[in-house]
């Protein structure tokens, strides 16, 4: 899993590349937490264009970041979600709480 990011306006855009499953879940969570704790921004935009696979463990990482950001009064948006990832998110009910941004 490779993670790039850039501050754009009030948002922190984060670009993930790779397959988000158990093998990279802890590392990904820690990196995203570091970004959240280090930078000042109002919303995180998670760009998943480079994520070609994600399972419910990966969904848990995203949901956990949403909860952490919400506690801090900040937002989370999802962008460029591919069909496989979209189906997992929809099945897990993630879209009931986290917005997809087109």
């Amino acid at each position, binding site marked *: 899993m490779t993670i790039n990011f850039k501050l754009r306006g009030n948002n922190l855009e984060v670009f993930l590349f790779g397959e988000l499953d158990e*093998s990279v879940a802890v590392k990904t969570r820690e990196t995203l937490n570091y970004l959240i704790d280090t930078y000042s921004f109002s919303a995180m935009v998670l760009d998943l264009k480079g994520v070609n*696979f994600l*399972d419910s463990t990966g969904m848990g990482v995203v*949901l956990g970041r949403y909860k952490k950001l919400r506690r801090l009064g900040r937002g989370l948006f999802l962008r460029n979600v591919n069909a496989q990832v979209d189906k997992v998110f929809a099945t897990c009910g993630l879209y009931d709480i986290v917005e997809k941004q087109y």
Partner: protein
Amino acid sequence: MINKMKVVVPALSKNEGFCRSLVAAFCVELSPTIEEVNDIKTAVSEAVTNAIVHGYEGQNGDIVIEAELYNDSVKISVTDFGQGIENIDEAMQPFFTTKPEEERSGMGFTVMQTFMNDIDVVSEKGKGTTVTMTKYFGRVNART
């Protein structure tokens, strides 16, 4: 049955990608759609994650992946020889997890049930768990 395979891997999370790609490749001769391939990969990933995280709880052990290919379907089983599931009905409930502190979603079985056509779980405490799943090709999933 037109083909079958069996592979044994140690319960390491780095093997998840290998296992799901392997099963997906095994199904190629039936010309599945991209969505069907993704459904199979996702379900295998969930089953293998369960074996590693819950069956063995990070301890050493083997995971056996078996698949049988039929004219219209694939039957996949994932077996661990770990601690077993105390209450299968409970484990299969959406959002049920024994490890909420690790941000476990509790959605693994729900994903398997949704993405595959049939699922059967056999587990014995202290002996292990086998999850058997069937995917029919060219069919709309009843649960999606």
